[in-house]
């Protein structure tokens, strides 16, 4: 029985971190949007660790926020601990990380979706994406309703044919006992997608009352760090600590003795796991010389006693898990509330997507999040907002938003997935970003808010804040260049105290700040600045002056990079017609259909000579076209 149930511009399947951002972006940009999710109690579910951010992931959250997304605002509402990581290192790698109250995070996000104009939320399972003439025309739910729409965003997470494995036990299930989506996989195959099978896992949740914190090391939050969202000012809130403890030889022995019962080693798991998210059995086997591993105990929320045991992800049988956990100091009496498990699921080969995240197979079909082979809430949200924006651009018949590797971590993420594909669940890392000194978390607004504003997503308030920030930075920069500090007894004593050499003549404050041992705070303390400058402006001044040399270096690299990114390759190129290309390169280029020369250059095995030949060919095509038009 089929029922015509309604008509939308855009339908999003899934309300996880990708689906929420996609749907909010679409609705905020004026499209009538429907979100269909398997279970509305699982909106923005944090199925694994109760934390947002971390190295490079914190950057992604800031970028999503700068474009006008929700993740930053939502974690600001619901964090129970916040820290800035890597403060001892350079500014490029400072990263925010927050512990979330999981339930609160979900409730806030769900409420935001519910309150959003143009947005409807409904519980159901999408089993079919309908097309007509190669374009999306609607979706069908398991219950028979058919919705028509012009664009679909698939953000189905780990739910496609998912299977949970705990030791010898396995069950077709989504995370946390939720239903899996068993039928959409086949439909995606019919639409022309190549599916892969990935695996991930999560540790046990344990009862706080069964833990002995006196045997652990307390890990408090930072007293005052900026929030995630550029819309928020410093948030003062009482914070909850995490706890650190360690595994030992006894733990490892139990794991070794029971390896034959682990589905990872017995072959019961076919999915490919991620190297950066190893189970404890992986760690013990691969790094057998390591006598102990760190375990962080993280709170799941303020209104629960459940604690997350970071570092003990496992797919061993429950009784082995219990025995192993109980060897860890502070966990001797531990009561496991939810056991650790491994989960396997279907995802697509992301090289079948364009840089806009639209499928090359079906017009109007966008994919975001774990379906594309990524992992992590932040990676999902980043793709979600881009897919949401580009679904709207598709309907508007306007150019898609494509962030490149020098614009944003989002650009690195999408380019990596789409250009290279991924053999394992993909996690963002700062090392993946070649231009990371320019892609800092502190300047995400300066990089992206204008783009978000022009698209009609970032609001007026964001734009005004950006504008005044940029203006203040420019003003103060030129002031620091002009303001000369004269040598005086007071100043030279101060400098001496800092281990800095005394001034003999007057120098601009700008130059003084370039000294490694002098910080912007020193300039403030010296009373050389006329007015009070906001901390965020101080930060910009300090970074832009101190690291000017390296920033210039990266800007020059980016200039070269941009030139090749601008050289577009027409869609549906027939590479077999290009004489002089290596056969291997023809095959790869044919399959991946890069959108520009830069993307082509990042395909492994495509040599500089191939690129030169290709450039000549494209120029030839262009001239032939011009001649025939003339």
């Amino acid at each position, binding site marked *: 029985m089929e029922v015509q149930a309604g008509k939308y511009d855009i339908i999003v399947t899934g309300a996880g971190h990708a689906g929420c951002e996609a749907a909010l972006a679409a609705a905020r940009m004026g499209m009538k949007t429907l979100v269909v999710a398997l279970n509305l109690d699982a909106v923005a579910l944090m199925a694994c660790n109760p934390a947002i951010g971390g190295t490079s992931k914190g950057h992604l959250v800031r970028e999503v926020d700068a474009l006008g997304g929700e993740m930053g605002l939502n974690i600001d509402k619901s964090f129970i601990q916040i820290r800035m990581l890597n403060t001892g290192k350079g500014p*490029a790698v400072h990263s925010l990380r927050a512990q979330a109250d999981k339930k609160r995070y979900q409730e806030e996000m769900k409420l935001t979706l519910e309150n959003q104009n143009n947005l409807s939320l409904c519980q159901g399972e999408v089993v079919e994406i309908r097309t007509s003439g190669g374009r999306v025309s609607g979706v069908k739910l398991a219950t028979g309703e058919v919705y028509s729409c012009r664009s679909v965003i698939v953000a189905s997470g780990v739910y496609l044919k998912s299977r949970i494995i705990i030791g010898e036990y396995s069950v077709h299930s989504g995370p946390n006992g939720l239903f899996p989506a068993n039928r959409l996989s086949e439909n995606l195959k019919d639409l022309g997608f190549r599916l892969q099978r990935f695996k991930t896992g999560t540790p046990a949740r344990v009862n706080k009352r069964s833990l002995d914190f006196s045997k652990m090391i307390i890990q408090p939050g930072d007293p005052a760090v900026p929030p995630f969202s550029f819309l928020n000012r410093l948030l003062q809130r009482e914070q909850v600590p995490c706890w650190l403890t360690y595994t030992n030889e006894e733990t490892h022995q139990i794991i070794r003795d029971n390896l034959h019962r682990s589905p990872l080693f017995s072959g019961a798991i076919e999915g490919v796991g991620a190297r950066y998210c190893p189970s404890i059995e992986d*760690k013990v086997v691969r790094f057998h010389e*390591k006598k102990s591993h760190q375990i962080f105990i993280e709170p799941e929320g303020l209104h629960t006693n459940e604690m997350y045991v970071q570092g003990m992800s496992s797919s061993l049988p429950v009784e082995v898990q219990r025995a192993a956990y109980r060897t860890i100091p502070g966990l001797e009496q531990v009561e496991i509330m939810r056991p650790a498990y491994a989960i396997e699921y279907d995802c697509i080969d992301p090289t079948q997507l364009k840089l806009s995240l639209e499928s090359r197979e079906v017009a109007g079909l966008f994919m975001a999040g774990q379906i594309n082979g990524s992992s992590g809430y932040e990676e999902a949200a980043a793709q979600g907002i881009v897919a949401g924006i580009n679904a709207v651009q598709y309907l508007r018949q306007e150019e898609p938003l494509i962030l490149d590797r020098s614009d944003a971590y989002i650009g690195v993420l999408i380019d990596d997935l789409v250009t290279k594909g991924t053999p394992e669940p993909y996690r963002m*890392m700062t090392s993946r970003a070649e231009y990371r000194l320019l892609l800092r978390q502190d300047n995400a607004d300066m990089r992206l808010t204008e783009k978000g504003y022009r698209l009609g997503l970032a609001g007026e308030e964001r734009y005004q804040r950006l504008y005044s920030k940029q203006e203040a930075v420019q003003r103060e920069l030129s002031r620091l260049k002009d303001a000369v500090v004269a040598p005086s007894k007071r100043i030279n004593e101060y400098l001496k105290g800092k281990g800095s050499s005394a001034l003999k003549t007057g120098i601009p404050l700008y130059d003084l700040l370039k000294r490694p041992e002098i910080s912007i705070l020193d300039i403030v303390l010296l009373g050389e600045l006329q007015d009070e400058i906001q901390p965020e402006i101080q930060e910009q001044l300090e970074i832009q002056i101190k690291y000017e040399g390296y920033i210039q270096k990266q800007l020059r690299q980016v200039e070269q990079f941009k030139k090749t990114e601008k050289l577009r390759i027409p869609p549906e190129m027939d590479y077999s017609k290009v004489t*002089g290309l290596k056969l291997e390169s023809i095959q790869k280029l044919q399959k991946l259909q890069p959108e520009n020369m830069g993307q082509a250059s990042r395909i492994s095995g495509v040599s500089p*000579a191939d690129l030169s030949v290709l*450039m000549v060919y494209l120029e030839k095509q262009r001239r032939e076209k011009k001649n025939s038009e003339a």
Partner: protein
Amino acid sequence: MAWDDTITALATPPGEGGIAVIRLSGPESLQMAGRLFVNGKRRKVKEFRERYLYYGFILDQDQNTVDEVLLVYMKAPRTYTREDVVEIHCHGGMIPVRKILDLLLQEGARLAQPGEFTKRAFLNGRIDLAQAEGVMDLISSKSEEAARSSLQQMEGSLSREIKAVRDDMLDVLARIEVTVDYPEEDIEGMVGEQIHKRLSTAREQCRSLLKSAHQGRLIREGIKTVIIGKPNVGKSSLLNALVRENRAIVTDIPGTTRDVIEEYVNIKGVLVRILDTAGIRETMDLVEKIGVEKSRELTRDADLILLLLDASHPLEEEDMKILQWLKDKQVLILLNKSDRPSAIEPEDIEMLTDSTIIKTSMIDGTGLDQVEEFIYHLVYSGGAGPKNSVMITNSRHKEALIRAERHLGEALDALAASMPLDLVTIDIRNVWEALGEITGESLTENLIDKIFMEFCLGK
């Protein structure tokens, strides 16, 4: 990958010629050349006139004269590539050409890829459409040629040493990056001091490689060539023929022993140092009397062995033996006395060896041209020498080392200025990239593989 930076290359065919032309193309051509050039009065030229031939000198960093040259500046777009072009006309021969190219690389020019000038000419509209296919063929065939020759070079120990420095840089990067991406793991990070030490070592390695490559052992000392063969096979005649045809540079009788005579000859611009056993009394059979050990010693560090066989006599047991122990060496087999009725044909030997075989006669001069041609190609395709010697560098290796050395210097300066380690990685990445092959490998993937291989990470 850059499309419009300043590139340089030798524009005339390599080898001995009266003059050689080095071409620069790109926006900084004039600035780069201008920094190295002084006029006849040894003054810097402030402003170069377009299409005007300047007489003067190229100076190195220490203001020593490298060569007396003519320089011409051609302004875009009226040039072959439609970019700014500078041509430097210097003396032919390898030494001035290589030195000037090195200086230009140090000024920041990039060695042109095969066919790159022509590619630019086409992309900038200088070459018409009909020739497009030709340009594409040129690029791919030239690149293949370059790839083949660089593949041969990869066997060399220079390549291995470069790779060792590169691997070390990857290791340093992995150790820095792992603490950046995993600040909460209990991994002992590297401190500035350790990194400083490893970067300094790498820089020293680059410098010493550059020094040996810079002068190029083969250029400095010549190709060490040993002539061997049984008595009366024509060894002295071969040496005399080569000396007679080519300008002998030095005749040297080293040491007190007259066992070995050393001659330097210049074959098509290649310096060849020939060690001849002609001085050994004729009754003394090299293989039998001195024995295999002595012959091994003589040929051990030879870049090329000329093995003479008497084509008018059938192969004997000991000929086989010689062929056998020369198997791993760079050998050219000469079937001499081809003017007489032949008892050995090249086909008889081909199954015993991979070496090139040439029929020669010292009486009528048959095959001498081919021998000279062979020696010349050996040097320019980079195949000369035993497999374990530091070979003449091809310019790409040198370019790699020059760039790497510069980036290492920048990294060390940054460390000295207390820059955070994660910023210094920008320079270290450049070192790695500079030392890379021309095959478009990805640093990030190598780096991430290394991180996860070496460290236990993750939740």
